[in-house]
Every structure is written in structure tokens, then in C-alpha cells.
């Protein structure tokens, strides 16, 4: 049970770090800017207009 606990927690930490790496790469590629540009204009599709 203890081994399973550490294996799972280790997997979570590995995914967490991989996620952080993806975020950094994504910001570097300009994705955060794309998200922001979409988010600061009213999204007509989201509100059901077009």
C-alpha cells in the first residue's frame, strides 16, 4: 500500500512538472496571448449569438 501511495504521488509530481514545462513552452510560443485575445472580446458563439 505504501509503495502504491508513493508511485501514484510520484506520477502526480511528474505530470505536474510536465504540465509546468508545457505551460512555459506554450507561453513562449505565444499561446497565452491567443487565449487573452479571445477572452477580452465578447465571444459571440459562447453567448449564443453567432
Amino acid at each position: 500500500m505504501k509503495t502504491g501511495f508513493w508511485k501514484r504521488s510520484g506520477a502526480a509530481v511528474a505530470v505536474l512538472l510536465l504540465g509546468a514545462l508545457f505551460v512555459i513552452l506554450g507561453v513562449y510560443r505565444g499561446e497565452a496571448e491567443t487565449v487573452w485575445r479571445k477572452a477580452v472580446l465578447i465571444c459571440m458563439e459562447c453567448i449564443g449569438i453567432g
Partner: protein
Amino acid sequence: MGKKHDYRLWCQAAFTALSNGYWKGFGEGKIWTGNSKHVCVPGLNCYSCPGALGSCPIGSLQAVLGSRKFQISLYVFGLLMMFGALAGRFVCGWLCPFGLVQDLLHKIPFPKKLKKLPGDRVLRWLKYGILLVLVILLPMFAVDFTGQGQPWFCKYVCPSGTLFGGIPLTSADAALAAAAGWLFRWKLAVLIGVALLSVVVWRPFCRYLCPLGAIYAPFNRFALLRFRLDREKCVRCGACRRACKMDLPVMDRPNSPECVRCGACRRACPTGALRTTLEKEKKKDDG
């Protein structure tokens, strides 16, 4: 109300208020345009909600996948991986504004509340199909002549966008109200359908339709915040299953992908066999 465990409801309400703190927007029919919208919030929270201070992860995912510039979204997937690895579907149970709406609706008395809908086991797979088709494949591949895709899930399904974005904005802005046509009526019908179902069944949208829940689901097994079942303490009385509003076999799968971590099973356990990874094991003479 007034029960000890209503702190979950307060947490949901506080997080909803915090992530939608641009109050002025509701009065003026405008949305927040600050830098905080570079970042996605963990729950389903439409970025066209007048109060929204952050971005919706599902909307953002479709926006990046559907853009001409990118074929994959490292940024949004990375954020979702981080939220998932930390807490899995705890996000659904504790931090999602639309989860709060469904919880409140389920408090409305109804003569025959159901534990699940007929065909529940099959219907639960629907959210994975929605994630794959409406959130990933169609925005990526069904593009116009400029190479731009559409946010299919937001456009045709998302009841959260209608409730938190569509209704407040069309109420405050006459031009938007005038532009609302069949699509708005369709999305309103989806919202009403989900709202009515929420009175009868607990969290129908989370169970059957939510693509964000589908993303977080696999993380439940190994997220840092998860359940641990002490099989020596468990007397298999079934109290956890009876308490589970998702009707899950908690004794056999305490970290089921369908669990939204509401904690009802943990509270119902008479022997304290279920605990989270954040709690230390109680000594036998602790009571």
C-alpha cells in the same frame, strides 16, 4: 442547510465570486479585459461572463486549437495537467461555478429524486465523445477558408456560457439582445434542460456532458489529492455507496474517474476507513 458540511458550498460560492469579481461588468454589459485573462481558471467559467477575471479552459482550448497559428495547445493542456495532477475532479466538486449552480438546483424539493438516469453507464461516456469531437477534432479540422476553426462546444452546447455570459449580456445590451436568434434559443433550451434535470438528478451536466470533467477524470487515480481506503478498517457496510450522490462503488474504487470529491462518502464512513491523502492516519484510540 446549516449542516456541518455546507463549507463545500461556501467554498464553491467564494471561488465563483472571486473568479467573477468584475462586478461593474454586470451593470454595464461589458467584460473584463485585464491581463488576468491570460490565465485559465480551473473550472468551467465562461470568459464572456461580465464578471470573469480569468479564461475558461475549455473555451481557451478551442480558441488555440482552432487558431491558424497552432495545431496543439501546450499552454492550456499544461495548465489542465497541473490542475489535474494536484486535485483531479476535486475541481468539479469544489471550484466549478456551474457545479455550484447544479448543487443549488438539486436542493429544490422534488417528489422523486433519482440516483442516476436510465442508461447511466452509457451516458457517462458521452462527455468523452463531446471532448473528442466538439472540443478537439472539430475546432482543429472543420476550418473556414482562412484556416480558422469554431468553438463548437461553446457554440452549440455550453449551458454555462448561456447562463453566465449570454443572459447577463443580452439583458444589459439591447444590440446583443436584438441579435439573439435561433442559436440563442437553442442554447437556452439546453440550459433549461440541464437545470430541470439538476433538480431530479445530482450534477447531470458533470456526469454526462462536461468535457472538462472528462479531462480531469483520469487524474483522479493518482492526483496528489485523492482518497485512500484502509481495507483493514473497512467493514464493507455500504454506507459510503449509499451516501455517494454519483452512485459509485466507493469501497471498490475510491478514486473512480466519476468521483467529484464532494466528500459525502468520507463523512458517512462509520470506521474512518476513507480519508484523503492530506489527512494523517488516526491512531486507534483517537476515537
